[in-house]
């Protein structure tokens, strides 16, 4: 089907020529560059010339002679280019014009033979363009400085006051809030990654305090008393982001270093986020693994040396900025330049760092400079530790709103299913509410960078406690309108932790080299387990989406795939787990209905209906069998109601 679709799309578009015969421009190129030219690549061969020689007069609002090079469509509309026919194209005629009055570009030297040959070959090959690329500068410019928002008048939670204005503007009826059972399940999974125990559900139902108060109490308890569970849960998030693991590529030969012990303690102490960041960037021996990157033995592409990994990782994690393109050449998708990436890399470089464009040395050397020099400078002459210290201070600079917005957006995305800016690593995109994002960023600063406070603030809002916004398809880009939290899929770790709790199984010991936090006395026995985040990824966990942590990963895939479903349907790991779980449940329960109700409560945080109970009785058997109970457990954990956070 996909093939058919691909062919169908292809057939309605001009075919790109793949001919083997040698055309005139190809012959010239061959002479100029000494070998058979490759296919012309717009991004690398054409865009730089357009940018340097044509952009000033023909892009971004200035269209001399009504010729616009902003997009391929504009170029065609201006009749500057006839794809497939370089000889007939105005652009070629003008850059090769004998009359200097008519030749383009009017200023500076004419294009050289190689550049002209590039243009001809590019047009002959169909004049392909980078999809979505435009020379027009985006209408939205993400601000740098923080902004204190004046709250809309009225009562209630500040988040809800801001969201209330947003709803009114978009004519959206405020969604009602979810009931206590659903709330409890959601907030447990979001804040500590586990399902509540039945005893906790009962206590919550019996709590006679006003609804808002009792919910606030639970939220606070999860973030404070349940510190162990909180750390275990958020460890996976940070491991993904800081590409930290207990086994993996690079550890084999010392080219990579764990930061697990430092990270675990930082989370356990709820280290303020600014301090947390500074310790990662200007590190001690314990926390240096993140900025050291992964060093491979042997030669590495210039854009992938550890210094540039540093530039890429730091800007992605802390600013939601993508410097991967700019590590190789000036970015075509945003305003970052090669020099920006190298200037960051120079902060950590031990030796003068030579700029390489597309893996070729340029003879220029990078000077340490921050992405936003208006916030301050880095002393190129200072020793490395000092430079890192200065850099860390700029990252966490009070005027650096990009830094606080980025983390506030990440936390919002984790709890609500979608960021205020989407995707979370493109913080230059327009947020659906600037007020909300700016408010949350300032709130974090006001709370002395306490991430738990930010989580608590979000969780206590009606926006968080609202009914989910069901989506028939994934909203794309600007179409998105906030209507409430999205459904989210359990992460691999959440899924396994839940199954382990349900079946009273789980790993014996942690692989993470950390001194585990003690459990508070109030934590029910069944929740005192070694969590999936603390052990090495196994085949099932990997299948369910726990990543190889070689690159920074900030979000997990949110849809179940066929191969994953296969592992869930007939994989031996899960099957054995459920079978052992069934045996242990049979020791606890002698009555079918009690066992069924217990499974439903633990897995779905609700009791089965009469109809469900009847069906389930047929499954467990009478008398109950191990196979029957294992089948019931499998069915329950396969239900989307179980696998989704609602």
């Amino acid at each position: 089907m996909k093939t058919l679709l691909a062919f169908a799309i292809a057939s309605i578009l001009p075919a790109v020529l793949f001919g083997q015969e040698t055309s005139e421009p190809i012959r010239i190129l061959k002479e100029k560059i000494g070998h058979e030219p490759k296919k012309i690549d717009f991004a690398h061969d054409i865009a730089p010339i357009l940018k340097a020689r044509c952009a000033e007069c023909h892009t971004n609002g200035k269209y001399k002679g009504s010729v616009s090079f902003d997009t391929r469509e504009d170029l065609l509309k201006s009749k500057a280019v006839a794809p497939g026919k370089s000889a007939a194209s105005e652009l070629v005629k003008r850059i090769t014009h004998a009359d200097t009055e008519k030749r383009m570009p009017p200023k500076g030297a004419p294009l050289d033979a190689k550049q002209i040959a590039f243009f001809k070959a590019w047009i002959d090959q169909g004049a392909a363009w980078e999809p979505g690329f435009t020379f027009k500068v985006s209408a939205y410019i993400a601000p740098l400085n923080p902004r204190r928002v004046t709250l809309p008048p009225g009562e209630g939670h500040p988040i809800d006051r801001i969201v209330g204005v947003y709803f009114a503007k978009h004519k959206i009826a405020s969604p009602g809030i979810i009931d206590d059972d659903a709330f409890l399940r959601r907030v447990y999974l979001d804040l500590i990654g586990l399902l509540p125990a039945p005893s906790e559900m009962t206590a919550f139902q019996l709590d006679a305090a006003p609804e808002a108060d009792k919910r606030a109490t639970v939220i606070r308890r999860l973030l404070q008393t349940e510190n162990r569970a909180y750390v275990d849960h958020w460890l996976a998030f940070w491991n993904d982001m800081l590409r930290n693991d207990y086994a993996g590529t690079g550890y084999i030969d010392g080219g990579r270093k764990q930061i697990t012990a430092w990270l675990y303690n930082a989370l356990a102490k709820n280290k303020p986020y600014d301090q947390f960041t500074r310790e990662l960037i200007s590190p001690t021996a314990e926390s240096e693994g993140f900025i050291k990157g992964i060093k491979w033995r042997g030669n590495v592409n210039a854009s992938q040396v550890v210094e540039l990994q540093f530039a890429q990782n730091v800007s992605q994690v802390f600013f939601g900025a993508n410097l991967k393109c700019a590590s190789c050449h000036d970015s075509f998708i945003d305003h970052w330049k090669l020099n920006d990436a190298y200037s960051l890399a120079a902060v950590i470089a031990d030796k003068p760092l030579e700029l390489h464009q597309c893996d070729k040395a340029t003879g220029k050397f990078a000077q340490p400079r921050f992405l936003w020099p208006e916030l301050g400078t880095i002393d190129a002459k200072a020793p490395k530790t000092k430079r890192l210290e200065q850099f860390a201070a700029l990252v966490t600079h009070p005027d650096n709103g990009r830094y606080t917005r980025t983390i506030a957006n990440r936390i919002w995305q984790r709890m609500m299913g979608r960021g205020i800016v989407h995707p979370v690593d493109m913080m230059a995109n327009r947020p659906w509410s600037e007020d909300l994002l700016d408010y949350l960023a300032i709130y974090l600063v006001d709370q002395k960078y306490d991430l738990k406070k930010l989580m608590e603030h979000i969780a206590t809002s009606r926006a968080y406690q609202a009914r989910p916004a069901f989506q028939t398809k994934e909203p794309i880009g600007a179409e998105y309108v906030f209507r409430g939290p999205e459904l989210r899929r359990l992460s691999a770790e959440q899924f396994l932790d839940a199954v382990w709790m349900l079946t009273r199984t789980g790993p014996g010991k942690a692989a993470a080299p950390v001194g585990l936090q003690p459990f508070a006395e109030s934590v029910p026995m069944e929740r005192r387990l070694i969590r999936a985040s603390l052990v090495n990824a196994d085949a099932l966990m990997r299948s369910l989406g726990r990543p190889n942590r070689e690159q920074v990963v900030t979000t997990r895939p949110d849809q179940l795939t066929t191969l994953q479903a296969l592992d869930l349907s007939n994989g031996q790991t899960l099957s054995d787990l459920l079978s052992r779980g069934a045996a242990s449940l049979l020791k606890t329960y002698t009555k079918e209905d009690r066992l069924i109700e217990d499974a439903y409560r633990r897995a779905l945080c609700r009791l089965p209906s009469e109809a469900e109970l009847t069906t389930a009785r047929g499954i467990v058997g009478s008398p109950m069998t191990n196979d029957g109970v294992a089948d019931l457990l499998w069915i329950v954990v396969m239900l989307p109601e179980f696998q989704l956070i609602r």
Partner: protein
Amino acid sequence: MNRREFLAGMSAAGVATLAGSEPRAAEPISQPQPTADTCILLWMAGGMAAPETFDPKRYTPFEVGVPEGRILCTFPSIPTAVDNIRISQGLEHVAQVMDRATLIRSHHVADLGNILHSRHQYHWHTGYVPPQTVACPHIGSWIARVRGPNNPAIPPFINIGQRLEGVGESEELKAFTTAGFFGSEYGPFNLPFPQDAIEAVRPPRGMTRERFETRRERFRELLRQSPLGEMASDYHHESMLRALDNAHRLLSSRERRAFDLTLEPRAIYDRYNTGRFGQGCLLARRLTEAGARFIEVTTEYIPFVHFDTHENGHTTLARMKREIDRPIAQLILDLEARGLLDRTLVVIATEFSRDMIVEGIPGSNARDQSRARSDTMQQMIHYGLHRHFTGSVSVVMFGGGMKRGFLYGETAPERPLIVTRNPVPIRDLHATIFAAMGISPRTSFDIERRPFYATEDGRGQQVQTLFA
């Protein structure tokens, strides 16, 4: 199993995919007409020495005191079914089918400054040298992503013979044995033990088929009874059920019999059975008949084992050739007898070659990793190609639109045994494989808003003369 029903399911999945969060095709491109519908990659893991297999050189028998530098290869050559092609002793069965083959002696791989098998394997399998800023997809995932399944009941990317747990460098192997940014829908279906392949497509051990089907029925019943409300219309919910349906269809399809080697007549099974690799070739044949898209069968990479000869190379190669010779030839003959060879591209490849002296290429700063260093031959342990050589590698292709009995490229007759004519780097070799599979080497997908190409930066060029 109802094929139409399955297709309907898959096409719905396809549509959902387009709307989903995974990378979209970046640039509509005219895809070439495929000359093959299935690709089988026979992976000689650990660095198969070309001079000991498909590119024999002057033979120097073992003798105490022979200087190391005199030895180019340790086996005599033998004639093949093609007049101008000789290959190495020990490959007599393959020699008989060389008239169905295109032999490329001029493949070469990057010198990465330091030989690390998993890194070169990463490069070969993804087309990109690690590290990369994004998780690169395996070539099988590219083919799965662009061509989709051949028969929807067979996963489009099947990986046979490589254990990913409990072997050295397994973390590094996992780094490229993945669909990367395409997401696990296009990831490898791993079958490390061919004899147990059937286990992967039948109910878990200890569960009867009847119980398995009943469990499924009851699942649907409880799903119907659960209070879904609006949630039923949500795409997360819908895609979850669709994935479970797809998995169930595979597990109850008739095609899953293809995974069961015990259904093969004993005589034929024996012809293949030289060990796990031979069984893997048989499994690949059965899966090809059932409609697989991409299959890799590996001799298995384990550091210092099999083709990874750091010492005792001659003896090890004699054993390895026994392991691969009959099954490869049988696979070609069986595919041909079934009329499948024309549309099945079989590729024998490896991450690099080996040499007695040179580590990497001449002038490389790669560290010498031989474990049996000796200026002259003293014991058999010294006799073999114990250095990793990147300057020329042999690749064999059968069927799938390639020429037959065709020799391409040439290497020097004396050390260094580098390519002297028609060099074929990884990106052009990949472009050739992709082209045969109907995929332009410039096919690209948007990842993090930039295009990512099937061959490095879209620059791979197919070797047109190899096509029949």
